[in-house]
């Protein structure tokens, strides 16, 4: 196995562009309206890249498609910005599966693609084919979701924490093994994970004998979204081989950048941070604090 590339020390988050705001749903909605024009997203991405962001998270939200196209057309970004897709965009499945059920959501996604034919997933009788080879269906879904990113420098693909943590809770080693094998094959990228249960995740990974993972997880001085608690997360990250991409470092705007990154700079194995910026003025303050406190940035 080849040695994985290190994660970009500063990775631009995508939540602000897609209307996700964990501190204020109203602010999220306002931003979503502003960023419905992809050129406004590109403007922020270009400014962040110029200021030192080496990567960008991107959920497989439908709005990612025009953004990916714009990035691909900008030579500087296409070559210089690593893309970190996060799959799947869970809210899309939750809302739709309320209506048609989970299996039908998957079938809908694949309908009209060439993969449908390859898998013999024609609409008639397709539910039977679904379970004949669960892995082939999941692989097909991953390929459809990742298609917009194919033209870009996709460094690693993160599995959404809903799925990581469900598989972890059920102790499904096979699911992790499948993902670790399949992502390099279908996306030529490293298989990476998002979790809200870092100590549990790292213990399972070491028990299962998997290589050093790249993990995106909440890490912040406030202990926000850190389970079972901040202290156990600090101990786990020091005790296991892992490369952490810290998210939620400002605890959804609760912490000031300077205090937030001074804390993260003291934690071992944190190789990068995901930061959400929605205005140019944010970029300077936040990136300066990261560069001051985090040695790799």
């Amino acid at each position, binding site marked *: 196995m080849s040695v994985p590339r290190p994660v970009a020390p500063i990775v631009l988050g995508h939540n602000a562009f897609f209307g996700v705001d964990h*501190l204020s749903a109203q602010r999220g909605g306002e931003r979503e309206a502003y960023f419905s024009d992809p050129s406004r997203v590109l403007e922020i991405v270009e400014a962040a890249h110029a200021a030192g962001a080496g990567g960008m998270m991107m959920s497989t939200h439908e709005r990612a498609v025009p953004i990916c196209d714009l990035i691909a057309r900008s030579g500087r970004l296409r070559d210089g910005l690593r893309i970190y897709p996060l799959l799947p965009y869970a809210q899309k499945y939750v809302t739709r599966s309320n209506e048609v059920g989970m299996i039908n959501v998957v079938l809908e996604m694949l309908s009209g693609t060439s993969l449908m034919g390859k898998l013999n997933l024609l609409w008639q009788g397709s539910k039977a084919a679904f379970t004949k080879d669960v892995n082939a269906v999941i692989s097909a879904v991953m390929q459809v979701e990742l298609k917009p990113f194919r033209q870009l420098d996709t460094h690693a693909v993160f599995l959404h924490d809903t799925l990581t943590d469900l598989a972890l*809770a059920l102790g499904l080693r096979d699911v992790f093994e499948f993902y670790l094998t399949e992502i390099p094959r279908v996306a030529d990228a490293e298989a990476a994970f998002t979790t809200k249960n870092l100590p549990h995740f790292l213990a399972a990974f070491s028990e299962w004998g998997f290589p050093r993972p790249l993990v995106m997880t909440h890490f912040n001085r406030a202990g926000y979204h850190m389970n079972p608690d901040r202290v156990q997360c600090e101990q786990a990250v020091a005790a296991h081989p892992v490369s952490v991409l810290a998210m939620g470092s400002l605890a959804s705007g609760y912490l000031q950048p300077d205090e937030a990154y001074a804390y993260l700079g003291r934690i071992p194995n944190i190789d990068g941070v995901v930061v959400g910026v929605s205005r140019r003025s944010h970029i300077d303050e936040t990136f300066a604090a990261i560069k001051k406190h985090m040695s790799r940035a």
Partner: protein
Amino acid sequence: MTAPPLRAAVVGMGKLGLLHAGLFNVLPGTRLVALADTSDQMLRAVQSKAADIDTFNDYRELLRQVRPDLVAIATPTSSHCVIAAECVAAGAHVFIEKPLCLRPADAEPLLGALRDTPRVTMVGYMTRFLETFRKGKELIESGVLGRLQLLRSTMYVAQLFRAGKGWRYDPAVSGGGVLMTQNSHLIDMLLWMFGRVDLVSAHTSHLYSQDVEDHAHVFFQFASGLRGFLDASWSARHYRTPTMAIHVQGEAGTVDVTDDRVALFLTEDRQGMAAGWHEWRKPDLYRGVPFDVGGSHYTLQAVQFLDAIRGGAAVESDVHSALDVQRVISAAYDSAARRGAPVVPGATS
């Protein structure tokens, strides 16, 4: 000596069934042993990934063969109480997804089974475990606002902008539309915070659905004398996820609760708090949980259920509390059918 782990089963493998399956496998002192679903596809998908979990098409067969200590029921609403009654008769504690049933009378077999075989019950009103709403209840119950004067509450989500498909839009299976399926959460929250409701008056409208309501407006009169309303829709633009908000005014100020924050305004110094605005945001109130699948509130809910089974504090949202929610919902539907005529909850079923 530690007790052997509780053996858990899940009936109904939709997304919440999967979530409960995960939690009841990973939380300390419990382990998932069996699943039931009428869909072969879902069972085979699970079995191909988790060979040591028994799977059944028929939950009765599961109860007979596995004899679980607890069962989580996450099937369509119309089957909740039938399945729960059989689980209790088989000796299992039951966790039931919300809403409890279509009509209050549907719970009778379950209440009968519980009289014969007392067991712990819990109904999945997990919004009670969101930190901000817990804090809001604490403030309201502290009496800091003085006598309560006004209440308005809303729950909106941008989900439905064309006719929906699936069991949620079939009133024979779901019992109703947005009022029953989503706003049972808000009604549960209002009863939890403000106590018994004496009278409701409701109006509902169909925006995209033929058979169920997409919008509801309900006026409440509480036993405490407080009056207020809820307004709810699943066809509301700009709400990416279901969003609940409660505003209450008392003689001495106001409390606003949303998923994101709690804001308290006081007209004067009260209970050691200064006049003016006070705010608590989610990170202020957050506490880590043993394991998070899909939100810490689901974990806190499951932990309360497991504690009660082990003889700890009683479950807050049990079958009786959930039945009160059903009585208010039924009264609201009765009222809406009679163009908003006032209806006393529990007077009809």
